[in-house]
């Protein structure tokens, strides 16, 4: 499906989505409470069939006090791809887990938890993935500091 058709199909699926600018492919923003239902429809709908979650990451918009979660989906069957974005508040970073839809999300969400401290509801095993288990803080947050880190001299 090309981007316009895809967008139309998504709009009928979920009227509350909006198009996100500045992306290298079709990108839509979904309200957080609609995410779980929207994602499972994306996978199960025959015309869409997004069967791969390529990547999942987050962006720390510290000035706007929010995290933006990014999901990059792709369909092997139809050959189209899509970026789904969700904004969650920075001081209460909770999002629904999609690991029951795509199994790989389990580790990807663990990594985002590790780096940004986003908490996933209904995640089977939310532990740190890359850093040591006793690590304090979440290093990819823009305001992260520790004793080891060197500040750039002005």
């Amino acid at each position: 499906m090309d981007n316009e058709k895809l967008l139309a199909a998504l709009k009928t699926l979920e009227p509350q989505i909006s198009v996100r600018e500045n992306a290298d492919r079709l990108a839509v923003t979904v309200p957080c409470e609609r995410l779980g239902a929207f994602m499972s429809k994306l996978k199960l709908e025959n015309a869409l069939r997004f069967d791969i979650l390529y990547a999942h990451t987050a962006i720390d918009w510290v000035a706007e006090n929010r995290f933006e979660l990014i999901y990059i989906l792709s369909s092997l069957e139809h050959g189209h791809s899509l970026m789904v974005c969700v904004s969650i508040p920075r001081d209460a970073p909770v999002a629904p887990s999609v690991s029951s839809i795509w199994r790989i999300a389990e580790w990807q969400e663990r990594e985002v938890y590790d780096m940004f401290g986003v908490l996933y509801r209904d995640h089977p095993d939310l532990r740190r993935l890359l850093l040591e288990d006793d690590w304090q803080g979440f290093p990819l947050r823009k305001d992260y500091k520790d004793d080891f880190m060197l500040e750039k001299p002005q």
Partner: protein
Amino acid sequence: MGLITEKLPLYLDPVPGSSWFLGKLDEVINWSRANSLWPLTFGTSCCAIEVMMAAGASRHDVARFGAEVARPSPRQADLLVVAGTIVKRMAPRLRTLYEQMAEPRYVIATGSCVISGGPFIYHSYSTLRGLDGVVPVDVYVPGCPPRPEAYFYGILTLQKLIKEGETVRRPGERRKPVLAALPAGMTVDQIQEEMRSLLVTEKNSGDRRNG
């Protein structure tokens, strides 16, 4: 080796002319060590592509310097080539590998990451700023990444260091680490010319020894 390095100087020292003999013995041992460096390649990021893959492939061909037998096992290696960013969690593993290597062992650190932290020196929560806190380094090869020529220059520098060592009398003595930087403004032609001449002298002195 134990017999030669531990007992031989003791027996030979009273004999006149023995230091000449020990010197010759040193030369032979050092020559063979310097020309058969078997690297344990420890490539963790981009430098590995240049230093291990490009340098080992046919265009640059590290086999000319006798350092092509890359070993994935520390027990069979005597040169540890650290190419790439070393993070805090990797450092203990690197130390373990170094300790598993048999003496004599040498370490070449390639790239600015292992020299100082390189591009990750500021605002990094995990990158080590320099390898020297983890393992003792013999030769530093600067660059981000160093070209294969620069790596060869590092190997040749290490060979020079090894050949200067007093293997029989003072085995295992570590020399001061050196920075093997190519002089600024050098062209590829000059590098190739220098390498060619180095290889020729190497060959001639080898012939002299054999003949």
